[in-house]
């Protein structure tokens, strides 16, 4: 059905796509797990990261990987802004917070569009040119670089959550908020930290993708949708579930795209989500019915 070359290429692309999905979805699962913060504008955080690279690397000429690293704190702070301005006043009402961030996504898109233009897509020159040759298939270095970047970041997150005090406090908050408060953990600090990380991860995801996909104010939309589907499939508050689902959906999307087209790929992804919901409503690794 598929030539070896295409198979290798698709496999590599699927790993890359899965990595991006993971990078974007992990922050969503974290924010949701800690305090049911559902960020409709998560795609806009992704987009912000891409624009950080556009401004710092494309316009200002800084080295690419400096721009990517800079995307983390910059977009992370945007995440904190969301927490203070939107999630804190709507705490307790998931839908309200979610719809309010929908409003925020409108605001962001307009602001970015007005500042850097809407019509033409900004193109970011590719820093790592050329491609790797694997068994006859060519996969660009730029894309491949995403895989180790994701491993490092998600691995770092895992380490943070398991071994670092603040990370453990986050997990405590996610498991049982009341108990966490009794332990002296400040909910506000935890929600800010969660949104900080959430923004940072989405931002880096966008930053890494900036040379690969068109940079427009609306570029984050598709990734946000996919991130939500990933999180539902994986289990709303489960980070491990998000990573697992990210790769499953990444593979589904890549292979179906290659065999048919991307519209069909999206449809298959949604069908997969519907089936998971019917068979296991809490998601693959989830155990909380939200």
């Amino acid at each position, binding site marked *: 059905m598929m030539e070896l070359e295409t198979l290798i290429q698709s496999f590599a692309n699927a790993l890359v796509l899965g990595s991006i999905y993971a990078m974007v979805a992990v922050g969503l699962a974290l924010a949701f797990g800690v305090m049911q913060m559902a960020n409709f504008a998560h795609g806009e955080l992704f987009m912000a990261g891409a624009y950080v690279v556009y401004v710092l690397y494309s316009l200002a000429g800084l080295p690419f990987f400096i721009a990517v690293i800079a995307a983390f704190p910059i977009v992370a702070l945007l995440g904190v802004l969301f927490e203070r301005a939107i999630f804190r006043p709507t705490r307790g009402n998931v839908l309200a917070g979610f*719809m309010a961030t929908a409003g925020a996504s*409108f605001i962001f898109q307009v602001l970015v569009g007005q500042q850097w233009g809407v019509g033409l897509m900004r193109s970011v020159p590719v820093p790592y040119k050329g491609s790797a040759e694997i068994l006859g298939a060519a996969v660009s270095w730029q894309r491949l670089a995403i895989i180790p970047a994701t491993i490092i970041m998600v691995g770092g997150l895992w380490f943070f959550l398991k071994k670092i005090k603040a990370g453990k406090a986050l997990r405590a908050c996610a498991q049982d908020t009341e108990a966490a408060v009794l332990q002296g953990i400040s909910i506000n600090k935890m929600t800010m930290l969660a949104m900080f990380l959430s923004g940072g991860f989405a931002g880096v995801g966008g930053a890494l993708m900036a040379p690969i996909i068109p940079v427009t104010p609306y570029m984050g*939309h598709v990734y946000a949708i996919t991130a939500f589907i990933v999180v539902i499939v994986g289990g709303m508050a489960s980070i491990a579930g998000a990573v697992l689902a990210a790769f499953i959906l990444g593979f589904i999307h890549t292979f179906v795209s290659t065999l048919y087209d991307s519209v069909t790929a999206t449809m298959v992804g949604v069908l997969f989500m519907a089936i998971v919901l019917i068979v296991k409503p809490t998601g693959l690794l989830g155990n909380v019915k939200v």
Partner: protein
Amino acid sequence: MLKSSANSSVEFWLPVFIIVGFLCVAPQIVSAYRLELLTIFLINVILAQSYRLMTTTGDWTLCHYILMGVGAYATGILAKKFGVPFYAAMPLAGMITVGVSLLFAVPLSRTIGFAFFIASFALGEFVRHVWLKFHNPFGGARGVNGIPKLEIGQSGDWYFVDFWDSTNFYFFTLIFTVLVLVILYRIDRSRIGNAWKAIYADSELCESIGINVTRARVMVFCVAGFFAGIAGSLMAYLIGSIDPHNFEMVEMVYLIIWVVVGGVKTFWGPLIGVISMSLVFELSRPLEEWRPLLFGVILIVFLVYMPGGLETIIPRFKSFFVDLFGKKEIS
């Protein structure tokens, strides 16, 4: 809630009278272009009120706008490809939308709260991608064009109505809107409507007294879907074409803005939302590309500071007028 029928009649018919009265003279006052906008406004009222129906059980979806699209496509295809007249195409389109709603309800009824919301969105996206992908019969990315206008009789018949005149379609839509409002109001005040509100209040209790909550939620979803389909049907006849790009998420967010700004607890909330936001939309035209920002701000402000919507300040207006005129409160 279970008011005496006299009072509830006044509560319903008074605003309807006022509004319909105004709307009837509108064609005399406004231009044909504005008339088309008013027609769209009426269709949005149907859409918003049908959405409210679902919220009485506490179910908020993100696929409602797509369901309107299902009704639009169904009508467009039936009318254009099969020459089905409107009095068959419209109810058929409504039933097809009910069918799609039922399909959605299978995975959706397994989720609640937030996952329900997101899953509804994903399912809506699925349908939108189906429209984009399949050239036959949906026309793919180009959509359906050249939908024949509504036809009642032929010229020469005494009952002929010329729908090339936008005023006629406007009144056609107006009649439909009033009809839909009456039906929705009656349902809201009925035993079923109260059962739905009860489900929102305490679904466990409802189960124990014999109300099958899952079945009820599916039913609300389908009834709301039917009216969304009708709205889509009207839209298809009005515009004459369907573009799948007009059914993207942004439109759904505007629907949410209407019901958030208006409120959903009382029957008239969404109407207030559609009226106020339509006015803001028109008046803010000079803002051009900054418009979505304005609406983003409105949405956030309302959700944070007035989550109940504008309808929550109506009792204050009422008592203001009562104090002013010293009448006994109509409540």
